[in-house]
């Protein structure tokens, strides 16, 4: 279960070795845009050495690999498969490119004698990918999908605005596609690190339309994202109240029951169970 996914430049030892103090649910070690072309080899070797010296972490380990150069992609993938990496983030995904990538992954796993373990997180960052989102999320091993609004805006030939209206439809399509197959809908990062109030408003909006996690680019953003994407104490109390009422109704042999004068049906109970499950995983309740 993810709320926050923090990007860290893959060639920065100071950030890499402090990754466990940022409290993010997942760390995305970036080998793509955050690394200069001539330093790709150094970043890959640095991460491999780091994962080898520190074989476990209190967060999900994700690596964003390079896909625009096949030889670099193969070396990135090989590094991921020979280390503790939990998920591979695949940039510029389309239906065709993702299924081709899956074939390469499976072939490499087979040749290395590695059992299928890593999951995939494609980035939806082109107009074509938005249109293909529902097919992309049906690719085997996909555990979440990230909307990349900056590259998408470039592809659309439009500027990003403070209102975010230009990404309303892509956001909604990504949410619908992800939720249709019950995987994480991960929102695009908020880039203005100093604007905490705007980050909160942006996260609250994306949460309100169904995103359940948000990527971030600075450790200071993690706390706000956790506040927005975690259940509130009032929501937890209400869910606990519903489940107590459910237990009582079962003991009394009642099929239907009400709480605070409102009928409680199956979807409401499912939401309550899911909310408490998340609260437990994130340490909000014992």
């Amino acid at each position, binding site marked *: 279960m993810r709320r926050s996914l923090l990007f860290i430049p893959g060639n920065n*030892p*100071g950030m890499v070795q402090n990754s466990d103090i940022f409290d993010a649910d997942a760390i995305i070690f970036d080998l793509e845009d955050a690394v200069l072309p001539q330093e790709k*080899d*150094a970043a890959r*070797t*640095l991460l491999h*050495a*780091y994962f*080898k010296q*520190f074989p476990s972490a209190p967060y999900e380990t994700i690596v964003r690999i390079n896909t625009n150069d096949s030889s670099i992609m193969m070396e990135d993938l090989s590094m991921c498969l020979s280390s503790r990496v939990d998920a591979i983030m695949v940039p510029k995904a389309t239906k065709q490119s993702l299924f081709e990538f899956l074939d390469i992954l499976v072939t490499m796993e087979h040749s290395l004698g590695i059992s299928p373990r890593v999951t995939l997180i494609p980035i939806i960052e082109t107009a074509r990918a938005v249109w293909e989102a529902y097919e992309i999320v049906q690719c085997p091993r996909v555990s979440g999908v990230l909307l990349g609004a900056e590259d998408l805006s470039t592809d659309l030939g439009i500027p990003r605005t403070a209102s975010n209206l230009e990404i309303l439809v892509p956001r909604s399509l990504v949410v619908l596609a992800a939720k249709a197959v019950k995987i994480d809908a991960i929102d695009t990062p908020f880039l203005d690190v100093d604007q905490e109030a705007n980050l909160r408003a942006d996260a609250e909006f994306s949460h309100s339309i169904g995103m359940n996690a948000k990527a971030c680019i600075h450790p200071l953003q993690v706390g706000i994202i956790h506040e927005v994407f975690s259940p509130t104490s009032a929501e937890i109390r209400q869910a606990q109240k519903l489940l107590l009422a459910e237990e009582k109704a079962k003991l009394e042999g009642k099929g239907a029951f009400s709480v605070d004068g409102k009928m409680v049906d199956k979807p409401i109970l499912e939401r309550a169970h899911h909310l408490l499950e998340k609260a437990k995983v994130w340490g909000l309740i014992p």
Partner: protein
Amino acid sequence: MKMATCGTYESNDCFVTVMPQKTGRTIQIESIVFSSFGAQIQAVIEGILEELHLDNIAIAIQDKGALDYTIRARVLTALQRAGVSL
């Protein structure tokens, strides 16, 4: 083998230069924590050279507080850039 470098002078990193030499190994260490960790840095580099059976090589490292994994990674990348097959 040719001369090659890897790394930065940023905190927690190191800058490594490798170059061929006629005979033997030379390891030159310059570190902000040399008095406490100089021997450990030396051991990490010697360990890599042993693993790869590399002789006739000179390595210079300017360390800014790098941990072992960073030193190892920077040396390995510099060697690869120098043409050493890893």
